[in-house]
């Protein structure tokens, strides 16, 4: 079992108090599984991604635990996490296009990074060049400065570099949102390629674009306002969602073929709640058509058969 997250809580400290961005999430990612993590802005998906690899300044690990391949990850303690970073767990960040040091040649930066992690660069150089070839980049790219590459190329370099040590879990955070349609497809394919070549054991793909996940992910986890709403195999989530939020979300997405004249789609009224003092119980209550007083109590995230889990009283 690659990743097991148990009731993880991560808050942001701000002037106005704690923003409870991640308020108790429990899920697992099996070996070889690519899990998509989707939700609207502010639902906590990026916080979840960051908390597994590196809590930045204002984030605080409040509760719950994370296990990777049976080992507990000390996510609260940055020094201790260094041992796991890059080796066991790695990331392709949202800002992948500006993640390479602008004043250093890519090869030299990679060498210094790898050797700073106690690995001789010579031992991985051929693998590095071979894998760059796999994503369509010549090894001469290592002699270039980041500025000389296109956005898509820089992203692929980061993908190869981040997975060079065959981590068991790769976190890919919004890596397609800044790309054009044509390059999006190429990056999505190379992402799946990483798992198929067993360069990574499992993957967490974070995005707000459900249609990308449909192509890439085995399973999809939907988050809403710091809580988990529903998790199921990708096609089940897309074609037969059962949680009211997922259903409304999917139905509001105009995908090629649907036209205003024939079928008028509807958005979800209202706005996600502020996570400074989140409402009690189910946080979708205010916008949910099925809500009643039972929803005042937070629904547990339960298994409803063949890998389908959700948190809603109204769905048995």
């Amino acid at each position, binding site marked *: 079992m690659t990743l097991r997250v148990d009731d993880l809580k991560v808050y942001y*400290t701000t*002037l106005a108090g704690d923003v409870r961005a991640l308020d108790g999430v429990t899920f697992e990612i099996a070996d070889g599984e690519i899990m998509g993590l989707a939700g609207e802005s502010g639902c906590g998906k990026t916080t979840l991604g960051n908390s597994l690899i590196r809590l930045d*300044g*204002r984030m605080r690990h409040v509760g719950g635990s994370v296990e990777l391949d049976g080992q507990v990850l000390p996510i609260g303690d940055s020094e201790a996490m260094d041992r796991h970073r890059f080796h066991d767990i790695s990331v392709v960040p949202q800002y992948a296009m500006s993640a390479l040091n602008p004043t250093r040649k890519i090869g030299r930066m990679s060498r210094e990074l790898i050797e700073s992690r106690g690995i001789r660069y010579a031992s991985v150089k051929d693998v590095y060049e071979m894998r760059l070839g796999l994503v369509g980049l010549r090894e001469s790219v290592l002699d270039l400065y980041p500025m000389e590459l296109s956005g898509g190329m820089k992203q692929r370099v980061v993908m190869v570099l981040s997975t060079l040590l065959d981590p068991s879990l790769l976190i890919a955070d919004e890596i397609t949102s800044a790309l054009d349609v044509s390059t999006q497809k190429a990056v999505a394919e190379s992402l799946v390629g990483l798992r198929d070549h067993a360069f990574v054991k499992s993957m967490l793909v974070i995005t707000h674009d459900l249609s990308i996940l449909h192509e890439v992910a085995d399973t999809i986890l939907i988050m809403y306002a710091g809580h988990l709403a529903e998790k199921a195999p990708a096609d089940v989530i897309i074609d037969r969602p059962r949680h009211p939020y997922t259903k409304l979300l999917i139905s509001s997405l105009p995908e090629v073929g649907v036209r205003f004249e024939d079928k008028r789609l509807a958005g979800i009224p209202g706005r996600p709640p502020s996570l400074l003092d989140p409402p009690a119980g189910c946080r979708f209550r205010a916008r949910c058509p099925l809500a009643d007083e039972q929803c005042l109590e937070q629904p547990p995230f339960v298994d409803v058969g063949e890998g389908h889990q959700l948190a809603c009283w109204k769905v048995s």
Partner: protein
Amino acid sequence: MHAPAVPEVSLPRRRIGRVREFLYFARRDRKIFVSLLIISSLAVVALVGPFLRDYGPNEYVGPGMQAPSSEYWFGTTTFGQDVFVQFVHGLGATFFVGIVGGGLAAVIGMTVGFVAGYRGGLIDEVLNMLTNVVLVIPTLMVLIVVVAYVNARGLLVEAIFIGFTAWPWAARAIRAQTMSLRSRDFVDLARLTGVGTRRIISGEIAPNMSSYLMLTFILLFGNAVLIAATLDFIGLGPTEGISLGLMMNNAVLWSALQLGMWWWFIPPGLGIVLIVGSLYVMNVGLDQIFNPRLRKL
């Protein structure tokens, strides 16, 4: 289509976010509090001081080389001038040069910066060239030569000369800030509503930079004071009256150093350091408020 008269929406002018944040930090961040205290007390000394004694700074009022005493708080010079009165008038001169010189440099810097930043194109290139030329030329040397030739030198003349040479870096900074704001959509929206260039700069861009402009003025004020002190020290200060730089010049000229008359040369330098130093420190405090990235929560 006449809808019911809408209640005049007059929420109290509570600019919630920024004011609360400013007060929160001003209280906690002693940098701003302390520096404000220092500057205001020096300003009070500069205003009230001259009235404490009925004689002028250059008058010979007592025995020379007196150490500070109850009668002469800061002692006397070699010739018996009261150092305290010199210091107090010198402070006034320093504030004057800082405000006028710094203010003039700020005005020129803003004009050049806003026009170059907003207009772009040829005007931007010409103004940028001018800015860079003035920036690269050691303007202090130019000032020294210019002021050497002007025999009737007053504080106003010195402040104006400083104002005309100290503006370039401010122009560069404001130009960069204006260019980033110009590309924001609300400027396009204003243009779409037929708002003219001048009104866009004054109504849309400048208010957004109000905190930045204040920081720029604070730094220009400090620079003006330092430049004036250097000019006065090298003998090019105002021909009549006194300034802190001139005091230091006289002290060195009449070997106060060798004679150990510390009360003659310590106060003027200290005055400048306190004013300019607390301005810089306040600038840091304010910068942290307006620029969250530097803020250490």
